[in-house]
Structures are given as structure tokens and as C-alpha cells.
């Protein structure tokens, strides 16, 4: 049975000759063979660009992870030289890492760059650009993206943006230090050009996202195969579609804000600097008249929709993996579609819940509190549909499914702990503590990143024709799950006890803890948690080693599989593996919805979207062999 499925003919048109894996590249033979640069660097093929994005973003994620490890060391042992990496840091960065210890400035730049890299260079490029590029055209039955060369330009802008961000570590004064949110006037008054680099890098990354977003939307609207109606789209495509709209419409205001802050930093304007601003006790030589709140509004107008840019593609992956491994249709497809549209719309009118403490006013806070509570409804609908989809399924457990299942409670914890933050009264207490850190990391780290791991394990066979090792995949999952929770769960306790975020030396929390009986001192047990978190983070890093080795080893040595090893229904699995340039040799004709698993009356427990509907059709799955 299994071997029969693996040799599934990828095309079902009556005229289509039976195609096999080894024929995948045959249409290339009449063209000249592209050289290395054309093939891997200046390729306009959506699959290559997707893999480029995936590789780069995984590298950036690892780099961001190391920044975090260094910060965790500093939090657990403030001012103590970093073991192992300390001398290296001093060699590379010089004075800010004198004696291998992390100075306050360095800690600040690590904090700012950890956030920036993880969000803009790690998760978004992986979730949206990498998976979106590779999978969306395949899923809708398109030969490529609408604008292949713009797609290439998008990757190159992303790459340049990443280079600018990395270079900023080495300039005098170091990288940006004002947090990933870059609040003014702080971002303008810190004496380093790192912020200007950050802004230029962001403009490049925003350009990349815009080009990508235009491309995705146009592709999904224009290049759907015949019969691929809107309600037959796999939900992953819907999630990417809404994500693309969020990027398209929410990023430009940040670009506007970035241009204005760049003017503040370079042309010495005062867009975000208030009248009478004093720096170091001296009246600043600025005209004043600007508004720090304006930056925050423009930043969070992107910043909050960005949360959904992080989470929606991840949810899309989880839905695909769950549908495939429960072997039954996803529960509530239409509810999912309307929910994701509603989330996309609402995500534009909740941004100021990040600003309850800014003094913007009670009435505005009340409005945003209401919209914030509203947006949890469609999010909960999506999560509920995922849970209900499991009900009564004969669940197939494999690495992608484990990560998808891990996503559910982890995202649940992240989402539910966000509710107190959405209420202005509770937020006053919890704001700027480790509670926030724990909350959004639960959404993004064990939430989104788990879903992304699921995606990597799930689509790896499509990209390479081989599966990743199952045993090491499970080791990777269970260790990651355990250590993620040991890292982030204690932070809820720390935050509720009042431990502040963004402090390079623990500030009042630590100094008070050293004085016996001091008011508001952190209890010793909370302080000790920092050591626990540090070691859990190190173990979490070690737990990624099996993944990294597995990923590269499996490219050439993984178990060989056919075109459709997961026995999936969507079009991405009905192509040769790996798909050739142009993806499909003949336009697929879609005749049914995306999740036709275990349909009664079929020999197989899955019915591909493009399998002819008539029982008298000459080609049935077994007729070929």
C-alpha cells in the first residue's frame, strides 16, 4: 500500500504521460544549464527564493538566539565575564565587551537587535517569505509567482537589510540600543549611529516585505488554477493572503515613521522630540515641537498587525499538518476563513493597547481595550477549529504532527496570558515586566517557531525528495518542548513579582534583593529562577543541534520518498519531487476542496484536489500501475 502511494502519478490529465521523479528535470535539457550564480543567487524561481529565504532566516534565528544566550548570562550573573564566548566577544567588539563582560550599552544593543533580528529577519521571512514562496504557488497550481524578478529583488532587499543590521554591530558606538520598538526621543539621543543603520536596514526590509506582499496577493488572485475557487483554497493560502495584506498596508506607516526618525537622527529635525528636551542636563539644540507619542502610534500601527504576520502563516502550517495527519477534513473550514479575514481587519485597530501607560488618555484606552477583547474571538475560533479537528481522527503521529500538536497548548498559553495585558487596569501592573516577555514569547517561540519546525519537517520531502530522520526529529521536539517551557514559564512568576524587563543589571529589583527585608525586593526563589532559565536556554540551544544536523544530513542521506509521502490532498503534493521549473507540466484542474480525507466510497483515504471527479474517468490511482 505504502509503496503504491509513493509512486503516485503526479498528473492526472488523460493526455499526461506517467511522469516519475527521475523525469523531474527533463524540460531543462533543452536550455543551457544555469551556473551557480544564476541557480542559487540570482534565481527568479519561487522555490529557490523560498529556500534562500528559509536558509537565511534560520541562520538569523540562530544568531538572534546567541544574542539571547549572552543576555541571559548577564541577567543571571550581572557584570561577570561570559565564560567561553567572553574572550571572543572582546576580540570582536572591543571596549563594550571589556574583559569579556557585557557592558550596559552592549546589553541594550543585544536586546534591541535580538528583537529586531528575531522578528524581521527570522520569523517573518521564514513564516511568510520562505514557506509562502515555496508552497503557495504549488498549492494554487501556479507555475511561479506573478512577478518572478520582483520576487528576486525582494530577497535581495531582505539580504541587504540583514547585512546593514549586522554591520551596525561593528561601527563606533555599536548597534541600535533603544529596543526593537525604537522609542523616541531615546532612539535619537543615544550617541551611536547604530540607530541610523537600524532605520536604513528597516527601510530595506520593509521594501522587501512590500514587494513580497504585492507578489503574493497578485499571485493568489491571478494565478489560481482552473477550478481553484476561493473556498477551495487550502487554508494555508488564506492565511498567507491575509498576512500579505497586513504587510502591504501596515508596513508603510512604519516606513513613514522610519523616514521621519531618520530625519531626526541625520537632519536634526524634531518630529519626535518635544519642546524643551534636555539631554544629560543640557537643553538639546533642537527646535522641539515634535511628539514622542506620534512615533509610538506609527510604530504600533505596524507593530501590532506584525504580531498577526508572525502567527497567521504559522497557523496555516498547523492546519495543513493537522488535516493531513488526522486523515479527515478540517473542522469548520468556512469559520476559519471568515475568522482569518476578521483577524486581519481587526489587527489594524488594536495597536494602542501597547500604549496604555503613555498618558494618551482614558477614552482612547477604552476603545482599544474593547477592540483588543474583540480580536481574541476569531483567534479563539481558529484555535478551537484546530482542537475540534483532532476529535475522532485516527491521528498519525510523526514529527510534523508533534510540532503542530505542541503548537496548540503553547499558543493557547501565549494567547490567554495576553488577555490581562489587553485590559488597561491589569496592564498598568504587568507592563514592562517579565510577564510581557513570557506572554509574547509563548506566542512566538513555542507557538510560531514550533509551527515553523512542523513546516520544515512537513515540506522537506517536497523540497528534497527525502524525509528528515524521524527519531532525531522526535528528540528535537521533546527536548525543545521541555526546555522552552522551563525557559518561559518562570518568567510569568518573575513578572507578577515585579521583575522589570530591559534591565542590564537588574536595577532596583536586584539591588533591593540584596538588602534584607527591603520593600518590594524580589524573593530569593524568583532570583534563583534566573539561573534555571539560563541553563534551560543553554539546553534549548543544545536541543537544536539534532535538528541542524538532521536538516543537512537528510538532504543527501534521508529516507528516499516519492512525490506524496504524507498522502496529502493539496496540489503541492501532486507535482514531481522536487518540482521542476514551472512546477506543473499541465495546468491542474481543481474539482474539489482541499481536505478530502477519508471520503466514503474511495479506495484511498485521500482524494487529491485535481483528481477527476467522474468515477468513469479513465485514470484512477491504481489504473496506472
Amino acid at each position, binding site marked *: 500500500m505504502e509503496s503504491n502511494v509513493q509512486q503516485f502519478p503526479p498528473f492526472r490529465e488523460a493526455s499526461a504521460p506517467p511522469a516519475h521523479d527521475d523525469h523531474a528535470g527533463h524540460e531543462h535539457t533543452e536550455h543551457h544549464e544555469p551556473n551557480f550564480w544564476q541557480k542559487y543567487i540570482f534565481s527568479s524561481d519561487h522555490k529557490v527564493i523560498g529556500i534562500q529565504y528559509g536558509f537565511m532566516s534560520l541562520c538569523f534565528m540562530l544568531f538572534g538566539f546567541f544574542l539571547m544566550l549572552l543576555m541571559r548570562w548577564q541577567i543571571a550573573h550581572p557584570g561577570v565575564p561570559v565564560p567561553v564566548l567572553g574572550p571572543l566577544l572582546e576580540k570582536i567588539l572591543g571596549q563594550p565587551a571589556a574583559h569579556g563582560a557585557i557592558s550596559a550599552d552592549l546589553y541594550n544593543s543585544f536586546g534591541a537587535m535580538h528583537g529586531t533580528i528575531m522578528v524581521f529577519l527570522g520569523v517573518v521571512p521564514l513564516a511568510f517569505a520562505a514557506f509562502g514562496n515555496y508552497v503557495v504557488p504549488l498549492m494554487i497550481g501556479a507555475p511561479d509567482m506573478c512577478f518572478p524578478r520582483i520576487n528576486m529583488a525582494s530577497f535581495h532587499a531582505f539580504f541587504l537589510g540583514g547585512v546593514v543590521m549586522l554591520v551596525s554591530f561593528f561601527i563606533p558606538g555599536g548597534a541600535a540600543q533603544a529596543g526593537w520598538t525604537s522609542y523616541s526621543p531615546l532612539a535619537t539621543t543615544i550617541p551611536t549611529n547604530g540607530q541610523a543603520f537600524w532605520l536604513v536596514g528597516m527601510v530595506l526590509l520593509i521594501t522587501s516585505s*512590500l514587494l513580497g506582499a504585492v507578489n503574493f496577493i497578485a499571485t493568489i488572485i491571478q494565478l489560481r488554477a482552473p477550478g481553484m475557487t476561493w473556498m477551495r483554497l487550502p487554508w494555508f493560502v488564506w492565511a498567507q493572503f491575509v498576512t500579505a495584506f497586513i504587510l502591504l498596508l501596515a508596513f*508603510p506607516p512604519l516606513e*513613514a515613521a522610519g523616514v521621519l526618525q531618520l530625519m531626526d537622527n541625520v537632519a536634526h529635525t*524634531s518630529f519626535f522630540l518635544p519642546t524643551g528636551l534636555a539631554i544629560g542636563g543640557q537643553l538639546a539644540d533642537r*527646535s522641539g515641537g515634535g511628539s514622542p507619542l506620534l512615533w509610538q502610534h506609527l510604530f504600533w500601527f505596524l507593530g501590532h498587525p506584525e504580531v498577526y504576520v508572525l502567527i497567521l502563516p504559522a497557523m496555516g502550517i498547523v492546519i495543513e499538518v493537522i488535516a493531513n495527519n488526522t486523515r479527515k477534513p478540517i473542522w469548520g473550514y468556512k469559520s476559519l476563513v471568515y475568522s482569518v479575514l476578521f483577524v486581519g481587519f481587526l489587527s489594524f485597530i488594536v495597536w494602542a493597547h501597547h500604549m496604555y501607560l503613555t498618558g494618551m488618555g482614558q477614552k482612547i484606552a477604552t476603545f482599544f481595550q474593547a477592540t483588543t477583547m474583540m480580536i481574541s474571538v476569531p483567534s479563539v475560533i481558529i484555535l478551537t477549529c484546530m482542537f475540534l479537528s483532532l476529535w475522532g481522527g485516527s491521528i498519525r503521529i510523526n514529527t510534523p504532527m508533534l510540532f503542530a500538536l505542541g503548537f496548540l497548548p503553547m499558543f493557547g498559553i501565549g494567547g490567554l496570558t495576553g488577555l490581562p495585558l489587553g485590559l488597561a487596569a491589569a496592564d498598568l501592573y504587568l507592563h514592562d515586566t517579565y510577564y510581557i516577555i513570557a506572554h509574547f514569547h509563548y506566542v512566538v517561540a513555542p507557538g510560531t517557531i514550533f509551527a515553523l519546525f512542523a513546516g520544515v519537517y512537513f515540506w522537506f520531502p517536497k523540497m528534497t525528495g527525502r524525509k528528515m530522520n524521524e527519531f532525531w526529529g522526535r528528540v528535537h521536539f521533546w527536548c525543545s518542548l521541555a526546555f522552552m517551557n522551563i525557559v518561559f514559564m518562570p518568567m510569568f512568576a518573575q513578572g507578577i513579582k515585579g521583575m522589570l524587563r530591559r534591565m542590564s543589571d537588574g536595577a532596583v529589583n536586584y539591588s533591593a534583593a540584596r538588602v534584607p527585608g527591603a520593600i518590594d525586593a524580589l524573593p530569593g526563589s524568583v532570583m534563583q529562577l534566573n539561573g534555571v532559565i539560563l541553563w534551560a536556554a543553554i539546553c534549548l540551544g543544545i536541543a537544536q543541534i539534532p535538528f541542524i544536523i538532521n536538516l543537512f544530513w537528510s538532504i543527501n542521506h534521508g529516507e528516499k520518498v516519492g512525490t506524496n509521502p504524507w498522502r496529502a490532498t493539496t496540489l503541492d503534493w501532486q507535482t514531481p519531487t522536487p518540482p521542476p521549473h514551472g512546477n506543473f507540466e499541465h495546468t491542474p484542474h481543481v474539482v474539489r476542496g482541499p481536505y478530502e480525507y477519508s471520503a466514503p466510497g474511495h479506495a484511498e483515504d485521500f482524494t487529491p484536489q485535481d483528481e477527476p471527479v467522474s468515477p468513469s474517468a479513465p485514470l484512477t490511482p491504481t489504473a496506472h500501475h
Partner: protein
Amino acid sequence: MEIPYTIETRPDTGLYNAKLGIWLFLASEVMLFGGLFSAYVLLRVGAEHGMWPHGWLNVTLGTVNTLLLALSAITTLLAWAACKVRDFTKFKIFHACTILLALTFLGIKSYEYHDKLIHYEIKLNNGTFADGHMVEESKDFDLAKKTGTVTLHGRVVADEKELMDLRAPAAQSAKLDEVTVAATDIKSMGNYGPRHNTFTAIYFTLTGLHALHILGGTIVIFYFWAFGGAMWKTDPERFTNRIEVSGLFWHFVDLVWIFLFPVLYLT
């Protein structure tokens, strides 16, 4: 498999790919300029009473520029129409006009920038303000060393607020003269560049970004105008689509100016 709908339209959407793409891009541009206009509104609303400038920009030049862009919108449309009826000569003529109009616009804009950059406000030690266009600096003028003099064509006012509303009767009737100030009397001095105040900051940023869009559009149109002949011969429909798409961008850039002109020049 080739990418479909690059030239012909998709039946259910009625669009070819690039046309949808440019509309999406313009949607993001609306949000970009929307963000900047919101910034303008918030800065202006938050300005200290009487400190938001009025009448600082030359309405005549602004009107001329508005008309230039409006005219270029017409020539752009006609250039596309000429392509549609397959008349390449007319296309060449109309888009030559577009390019010339755009360059004239940029020329006038540069003149206006220059006018602001040679306009100085000098805060004097006695609390008054000398304000006007730079006539000359004496050879030994050095603000740090306190030597030499500077001569402006303008006036001296007691309160900075008098410089804000140039449409007020007092400012209209004020006599402009040559004012010479010694460096020793100068507390601080600066031109009407972006850093002068939030108005010049937003003025330079908004019109600068708009001018960059004009420049970008002009380069694209010039490219099609100068090097489009080859594609015209092989695939006129595709070339016509390119002219339409670049024309849509051009109309958007014109439209931004239609908002910028009243917001900056007339209020």
C-alpha cells in the same frame, strides 16, 4: 508551464497581472503618505499656539507646479491612448511632453528649496530676531570666533511669533531692507532647512519624498520612451500595458501633489 495573464486579462478578475500589482503597490503608497499626512496633522494640532507658520511658501510657484503636473497627467493618458491606437509617433510626442513637464516641476521645486536654504533666522543677544535672505557674509565671518558680519535682506522683529504668519496684515505691510548683523551680537543662527522647525521639517520630508517619486516615475517613463522601440515592434500590447501601469503610478504621484499643495501652501 508559463505564467499566465502577463498580457491578456484573467476573465474573472478582468485584470492582467501587472495592473493588479500596481494597484496593490499604490495601496501601500496610500498608507505611506497616509502615515506622513497623519504625522502632519498631529504635529500641527500639537503645535504651540501661534507657532505654526502660514504663508511661508510661494503660492504662485505652487500653483504653476500643480498645473504642470495636471498637464502631465493629461499627456500621460494621451500617450497611453496613442499606444492603444498603435500610433508610436504620437506616443513619443506626448511622453516627451510628460518628461519635460516633470523636469520643469523638479526645477521649480529645487528653486523653492534653494529659496528656503538661503533664508536665515538669526537670534540676537538682545532678544530680537533678524530674518531674511542671505545677501552676503563678510570674508572674516566666523560665528564661533565671533568675527565679521552677515547681511540679510529682511527685517528685525521683537518676537519670533511675528515671523510665523506672513499673511497677517502686519507682516504684509512690513518693509524689507538690508540688515547687517555683527557676529558678536549673534546668539544663534540657522537657515530654513528641515531642522528649523516642525513645519520646515514636514515640508521638506513630504515634498522631498514626493519629488523622489516624481524622479523615479520620470526615469521609468524615460526608459520606456527611449528604449521601448524594440518591444513596441515585437509586442505592442505588452508595451501598451507597461505604459498603462507606469501611467497609473504617475497619476498617483500627481494625486499626492493635489493633497500636498493645499495642505502646505494654502493653509
